[in-house]
């Protein structure tokens, strides 16, 4: 019997206190059968990466409303690299202007970025599709 679950860390870096979006996503992922670790507001990139490693998540989803996306995504990616944990996928959402989103993805700092108003089913499908290809988690 397979007991595998996709595990996701939903992180809320930065100083803003809006976590409504993050919570909506968390619930949608849970309802899709995933285990969501939610670690609260005001996370530093260091805290997020350490939690992701300990919880051994498949994917980190960052919700950023503060405009700090251009520093946070590269920093999280760099820390993952330092920890040899690049197998953990990084995605995000929030208020991110299109040209910034394009450059973050082009430069490999994020796998996917979802703008506010994206149907949660789209995010769930994206994750499920990627995880099908990405079952090399262990070895």
């Amino acid at each position: 019997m397979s007991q595998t679950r996709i595990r996701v860390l939903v992180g809320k870096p930065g100083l803003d206190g809006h976590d409504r979006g993050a919570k909506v996503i968390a619930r949608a992922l849970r309802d899709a059968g995933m285990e969501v670790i939610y670690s609260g507001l005001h996370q530093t990139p260091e805290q997020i990466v350490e939690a992701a490693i300990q919880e051994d998540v498949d994917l980190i989803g960052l919700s950023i409303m503060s405009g700090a996306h251009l520093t946070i995504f590269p920093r999280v990616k760099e820390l993952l690299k330092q920890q040899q944990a690049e197998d953990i996928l990084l995605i995000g959402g929030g208020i991110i202007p299109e040209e910034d989103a394009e450059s973050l993805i082009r430069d490999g700092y994020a796998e996917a970025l979802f703008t506010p108003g994206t149907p949660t089913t789209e995010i769930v499908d994206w994750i499920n599709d990627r995880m099908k290809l990405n079952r090399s988690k262990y070895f």
Partner: protein
Amino acid sequence: MNGVQEWLKRLFLQDRRAVAKLISLVEDNIERHQIMRAVLPRTGNTLVTGITGPPGAGKSSLVEALTKLVREQGESVGIVAVDPTSPLTGGAILGDRIRMQSHATDRNVFIRSMGTRGHLGGMAKATADVIRIMEAGGYTTLLLETVGVGQSEIEIMHLADTVIVTLNPGTGDGIQAIKAGIMEIADIFVINKADLPGSERLKNDIEMMLGMTGQDKAWRPPVVLTSVYENRGVDQLQAEIKRHHAFLRSSGRWKIKWQEQLQREVWRHLNGQIQEQFNSLWPKLLSDAAIAEGTDPGQIAEQVWSVMMEEMKKKND
């Protein structure tokens, strides 16, 4: 599998990525036997402290406060936060880390959140494995948090050597706890949020109930008042945990507990195996019309049992 060996090697070098990966493997039921066989010889020396109680009682806050004390004393801490209330077949939102942020980048504190997955043999089996992997990975203080006051939580708390039941003043928690049968498993009572009114009264209620029930005479559960907000009572709680640990070791209770835990654990495994075999046999028995309508289920069970025994013999020959 080569990969598992590599992770095990790294586990014994106290590499926390290996701790994390091996926990996932065991939770996913991949190579579990191989992993646990390697891990077990390096476990069994550390007493596990469990914290349970109703939702929102302040369990995670207490875990964080205790962790702070333990870290000041130079020990490393492994924490398992179990949420057995998540729907059996679905996903889960695991939020205990929110209250444990002050240790989030401390490499000597390892926190792992677990949801229910409909584990064969129950949640407790998987939890036991996770605790052992942490111990084998070098964490010297082991804390287990689980929410709720139902049967599955009590099952999980049986994995702990010292059980702390956390209640709050002014909530009717005392009465709930008796109803749920949680009084019997408590080694220490904590009245958290003692900054709120009604703590002394709840303390008196608990003391009174302890006086009435036939508790283990050698150990009377102390009632500790704490306030994480006012940073009060947590050092006293730690002192009581240490006192209980010492009691377990000096009185020989530890050995008895260990035997009880082993018995439960062996049963969980057996139970899982029996269930699996039964489930695969049942449709055949039904369709073979070996079972007449109106037969007493108890009698059917005896029939099924002998079929299962035969199958087992065949397998062993």
